[in-house]
């Protein structure tokens, strides 16, 4: 038989332990949620253009939801959609018409029209501009984007 005094003492410690765990645990849970917020990925299908406005050899610039710019090109009937974000360190590339290339002003990365890096740090790392899936439904061209929400 455990003496009454010892049982009270044990109960007191157990209660204190639970109280501490509940209070600091709640605080820690909120801190973790603040530091590492939940990330979810969402697929989106966005209308880009009609095929009539993108004949072979033409290119179009579209602003996707969230602000990203997407360059659509029609190379001999194949419609491609490229991101304008440099895979090296995330700056936005510029399309240089006179050179027929994408150029990143941050670290001088150069990309061919199909998005493959041909010079600068992205070429050394064998990188390319992100290519978004495209679907053509009837006359309409759709972009398939993945967003973090």
């Amino acid at each position, binding site marked *: 038989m455990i003496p009454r005094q010892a049982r009270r003492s044990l109960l007191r410690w157990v209660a204190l332990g639970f109280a501490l765990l509940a209070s600091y645990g709640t605080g820690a849970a909120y801190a973790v949620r603040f*530091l*590492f*917020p939940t*990330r979810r990925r969402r697929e989106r299908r966005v209308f880009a253009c009609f095929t009539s406005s993108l004949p072979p050899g033409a290119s179009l610039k579209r*602003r996707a939801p969230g*602000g*990203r*710019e997407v360059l659509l090109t029609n190379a001999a009937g194949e419609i491609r959609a490229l991101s304008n974000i440099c895979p*090296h*360190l*995330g*700056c*936005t*590339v*510029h399309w240089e018409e006179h050179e027929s290339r994408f150029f*990143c*002003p*941050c*670290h*001088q990365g150069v990309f061919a029209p199909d998005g493959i890096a041909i010079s*600068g*740090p992205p070429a*050394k*790392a064998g990188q390319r501009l992100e290519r978004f899936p495209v679907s053509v439904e009837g006359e309409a061209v759709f972009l398939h984007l993945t967003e*973090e929400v």
Partner: protein
Amino acid sequence: MKAITEEVAFGWWIRGIHRWSSHLMVAAVILHAIRVFFTGAYRAPRELTWASGALVLLVVLGFGFTGYSLLYEQLSYWGATVAGNLTEAVPLVGPTLARLLRGGGGISENTVTRFFVLHIGILPTALFLLLGLHLLLVRLHGVSEFVFRDEAEKRERTFPFFPDHLLTEVGIGVALTFLLTCLACIFPPGLGERADPVHAPAHIKPEWYFYFTFRWLKWTGLSFAVLSLGLAAFLLVAWPWVDRLLSRLSPKRDLSIGIGLVAVLALLGLTLREALG
């Protein structure tokens, strides 16, 4: 920032002094580190003094980076984007560190808040503690004096804190305030183009003290750049112990001087290369 510069009484002056003193602070810490390195003042018993000073240099660079990022100009936005992605490339802890730094997956208003907290809370506390330790160690070990081989050993010179030391400090303070006021009046800090998350500007450069990293990133692959810059920062802090190891390997030659010379020339070369286009 616009209101501070254009509406608040003497806001332009405070901002000018803040901006110019940040440039002078970085330059002063770099020059001090070079002087201490080439006079060998980091050697025993002053290893910890050097290490704390090197950490102060890194904190000062952190101040510079978070400071110009808070303006939310094009340079701020794209500088923060590059820094965030650079952090993300650090092996193992990179993605978590980058998320903590940016307050999310990309640069947003959360990033500005975090940089503000870093700039006015975390970095000042770190600087206060490191500088406190640095000065305490300087008091404990004394200031190292450069003595030539053929020079007779000097006897210890002391002078009273009041009024000698205090008056010198006040004099330097007044002279610096005058110099900074002149700089703030002649070259007032402006406001660049507002941050545009969709378009990186055609010509972009960070502040002069990051020119070397900027050029290094252009010349090398990302992983190599991240690892080499991390190694350089580690060597900077741990140099007294690396030097001891080197002197054991080559007791007759002072390898540190040669390595230091190469490092300074490389820094200068990369900085000038970036500055000249």
